[in-house]
């Protein structure tokens, strides 16, 4: 069986991440040039990091007798991999993500309510029709 094609991360996005960081750390705002070979190394490193982190998180997941990797498994994996400095900013990201999700859910609920109201309004012509039939019966 042929091995799956290797997925790559978008170079443009990796470049943006690197440039943003270098703009922060460079003293006096001097521009820092990044060669193409370095940019390829960053992209490859990022991909390898994803594999390493997800494999470690998978181990955490299995230790807990579960089948699905969740957020806690990822955070524990970072401790295991000795990247504890990442855990706090990631907790912040997680909270913001959950808040956004909650907001989106309530938005969806509102949309459904509006849809129901619209359907009720559209059923009005039916009543008019019934009234017309009723009038005819009276005349008979």
């Amino acid at each position, binding site marked *: 069986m*042929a091995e799956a094609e*290797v997925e790559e*991360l*978008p170079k*443009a*996005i990796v470049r943006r*991440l690197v440039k*943003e*960081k*270098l703009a*922060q750390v*460079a003293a006096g*705002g*001097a*521009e*820092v*040039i990044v*060669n193409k*070979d*370095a940019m390829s*190394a*960053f992209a490859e*490193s*990022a*991909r390898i*990091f*994803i*594999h*390493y*982190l*997800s494999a*470690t*998180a998978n*181990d955490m997941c299995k230790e807990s007798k579960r*089948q*699905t*990797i*969740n*957020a806690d*498994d*990822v*955070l524990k994996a970072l401790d*295991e*991999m000795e*990247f504890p400095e*990442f855990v706090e*900013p*990631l907790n*912040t*990201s997680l909270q*913001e*993500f*959950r808040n956004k*999700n909650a907001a989106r859910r309530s938005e*969806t609920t509102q949309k459904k309510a509006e849809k129901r109201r619209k*359907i009720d309004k559209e059923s009005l012509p*039916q009543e008019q029709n019934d009234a*017309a039939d009723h009038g*005819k019966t009276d*005349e008979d």
Partner: protein
Amino acid sequence: MAAAAVADEVTEAMEQVEGEREEADAVADEAAEVMEQAEGEREEAIDAVAGEAGEVMKEVVEGEREEANAMADEADEAMEPEGEREEEADAVADEATEPMEQVEGEGEDGDAAAQRPALPLGRVKRIIRVDRDIKKVTNEAALLIAAATELFVGSLAAGAHRAASRRGRRAVRAVHVRAAAREHRPTADFLLDCLPAAEEAAPARAAAAGPSRGGGRGEAKPLPRGTRRIDAFFQKTT
């Protein structure tokens, strides 16, 4: 005479009533048709989303529902195939890159992790699932992995910049990335073996390795507890 007039009036009234009824029927028919169309479209969107969800994501029920809702909303707003959406996202990223470079000096110093991850989540998920052992990943977990990867790239870039500065260089090269990886032991543990060794890096590495490692030069480093080698995933097929 009077009876005839009354009869005429009655006939006229009946005709009016019938006309009104016909109008009402037409309106009702139109409404029904519109509703049928809407339902058809919704079913189509839901089927497409469900198909994509089944194909692309294997997640816990909650994760699936959340994602399906999100994708349904997106599908309702813009009836685009996912491929086109991804292409648009890439195009937008490319467009964003140029202005960003122009205003590089004035870039915001916001923490990257504080914003939604820039790495495309679909791509990250596909990379995660290259590992056959991994069955299911919640959306939150995938999001955290993407955000962690951004932090990692940032710290690696900072390290590479330090390495370049120490060598009196204004340009960051692959050799500096390797140097940054080597200086951070947790990174060195999993990354050095996988990065391709540049020709010019060999003498620098030999010089650096000598004093710092002594007898440990030839030995493969023991892996951190609970982890395993993942080199196999990165072998390129020729």
